[in-house]
């Protein structure tokens, strides 16, 4: 009998191939100092096909994180939203492996 993973039940979206290496890279994003992972979704059983989510990061860390995400080559779409008026106090990033 096929086991339904708990992580499959957390969130589901879209489709597209994603490798173990990609997953490894995405898992590391939430481990970066100053980065808060706000949401994440994955789809694909048994192979993971797509992952999307959003991160909150301090403005001072945003550039470095964008570089890291782009360097990983996993994320097809990355949207960056500076938050705070008049000064930016938080940067929200929405990522999607299949955008």
């Amino acid at each position: 009998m096929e086991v339904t993973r708990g992580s499959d039940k957390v969130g589901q979206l879209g489709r597209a191939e994603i490798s173990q290496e990609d997953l490894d890279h995405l898992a590391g994003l939430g481990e970066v100092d100053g980065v808060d992972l706000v949401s994440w979704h994955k789809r694909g059983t048994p192979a993971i096909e797509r992952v999307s989510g959003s991160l909150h990061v301090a403005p001072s860390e945003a550039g470095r994180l964008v570089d890291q995400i782009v360097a990983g080559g996993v994320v097809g779409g990355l949207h960056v939203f500076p938050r705070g008026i008049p000064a930016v106090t938080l940067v929200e990033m929405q990522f999607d492996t299949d955008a």
Partner: protein
Amino acid sequence: MSSPDETEALDVDLLLAAIIDAAGEGYDVLAVSGSEPLLYRDLPRLIRRAKEVGMTSAVTTNGTLLDDRRLAMIGGVDLLAISLDGVPASHDRMRGARSFERMSRRLDGLRASGIRFGFIFTLTMQNLDELEWVAEFALAAGASLLQVHPLELAGRGLPLGGARPDEEELQWAVVEASRVQTAVGPSLTVHVDAVARGSLTQVLDRPGGTTGFAGLVDPLVIESDGSITPVEHGFDRSWSLGSLHRDSLATCVDRFRTDRLADLEEHVLRGAAVDAAGRDSRFVNWHEAVGLRARAHADAC
């Protein structure tokens, strides 16, 4: 001091002496778990002794027996950890009908006692989606810690091997715990018992013999039959340091340091780190990896 199968109580004098010896070796935490520690009448003496020798103390309980009398009894404990296996239906499925209700009705008294407490959530292959609910429950209850502990092949996990989370699920658990941490804020610390693979270079790069005994063999486990084993309950008995029924903890440690410590460091700890470094997963259940490596090495010998 741990055993999920505990049916007998060790003589308290043996344990009190062992705590002094352990402190002398550099151990600074006393953790009492297995079966139900609140039924052990000498538990308060162990907690007091730990404090006397400068250790912090933690007790893991199912929480159902936390009445005013027992709370007063363990008032000196530094952290009380309550097992919580998911949403109420999941918890009751694991621990018996009405277990969640019997535990949760004790939480008001526990909070009023002022004892710092947290919950331990056992991660299986199927229950990561319950972590958010558990975190919100823990936060509302006034807990300061939520520990996510993967079900392991050793010890209690053996009969439930199919439910053990694989490396991919462990990785997602770290991701989900990070998200949940963001959601609940800093009042509750969400911690996953997983080690980042990159940090294992500390084990690989360290010259042999440069770390003290407590730094290498951590934790040191006293099983319910008095035997002393490294790292976790259920660790391969061929690596046992000895028995409190025959020798003091200090004697067992001295003998192990001379006869086996180099083997443990080279073949088990460094071996497990090499194994982990060669795998894809970013995170490793380190204690389980060490336990499996110890068993494999013992079988090979």
